[in-house]
């Protein structure tokens, strides 16, 4: 089925797409038919920057298990680092302190 439902998140960082690195501003997440993964439905995540056009996109299509494992690993990685180390405010603070 096409779910039509899309979750959005404003994001800040960089991604590497088909034409190299670019700044990321938006993530869209949806469970729907994949373009490439050999499954009927996958969790599809597009990390992009709409101002730079449709090709400014890093795309993944994950199984539900893979998506949940990714969430766990992101949380584990963040938990293993000092709080705020990778935050926008945290990195600014680091620069000032340096």
């Amino acid at each position: 089925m096409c779910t039509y439902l899309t979750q959005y998140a404003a994001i800040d960082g960089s991604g590497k797409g088909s034409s190299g690195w670019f700044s990321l501003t938006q993530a869209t997440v949806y469970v729907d038919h994949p373009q490439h993964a050999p499954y009927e439905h996958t969790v599809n995540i597009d990390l992009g920057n709409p101002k730079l056009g449709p090709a400014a996109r890093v795309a993944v299509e994950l199984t539900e298990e893979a998506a949940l494992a990714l969430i766990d690993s992101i949380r584990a990685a963040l938990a293993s680092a000092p709080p705020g180390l990778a935050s926008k405010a945290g990195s600014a603070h680091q620069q000032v302190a340096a």
Partner: protein
Amino acid sequence: MYDAMMSETVKINGHQGDEVEAYLARPLTPGPVGGVVVIHHMPGYDESTKEMVRRFAANGYAAICPNLYWREAPGASPDDAAAAARAAGGVPDERLLGDVAGAASYLRALSSSNGKVGVIGHCSGGRQSFLAACELDLNAAVDCYGAFVASAPAEGFPLQVEPVISRAEKLDCPVLGLFGDEDQYPAPAEVATLDAELKRLGKQFEFHSYEGAGHAFFAVDRPSYRPAAAVEGWQRIFEFYGKHLAA
């Protein structure tokens, strides 16, 4: 039998006169031939859809597929365009209708046209095909497993994807519906609801539902492909169009 055909990318005037890219394939005969508007599925104006357009041409129809994502992503690859259109909120029904109407007009304006134009869509395009059949001047419509024709989407879905069964009264062309018994969207109960409503309204339609097939059983590049259902489904499609669109 002379069987030459050509396919090419053209520009048509879609909703509100917007210039929209479209993929056209047609037999190189003087005609008269019927036309088919192919509505691409949500993953985009892609290779498999263009292949379907050529298949109709190889079988004697002028066929065209408007790029429904042209406005959001002109010239982008189909998957990037689909993602961009989705991020922008999807294709509003009114715009879809305008683009399908423009595509149908383009086909009828071909010197080889017999004036008859049908429509076909799969998945989200199945719903859009039914919607177009209710709202536009068309001669035959094929709905391949379109969900949310009769049932309402779950809470949280955008309002633009409303069930279109309430518009069925306006339907004035025959409909062919092809479904999978194991599909959940649309589930057999939804198909039965639509069947009952079309019967109640006295509409001309035929539905076929295939055992052992689920959603997207026509898609040869997906694990959902079911050869027996797809082969028979294509036969039903060409019989249906042969009856209603042939010269």
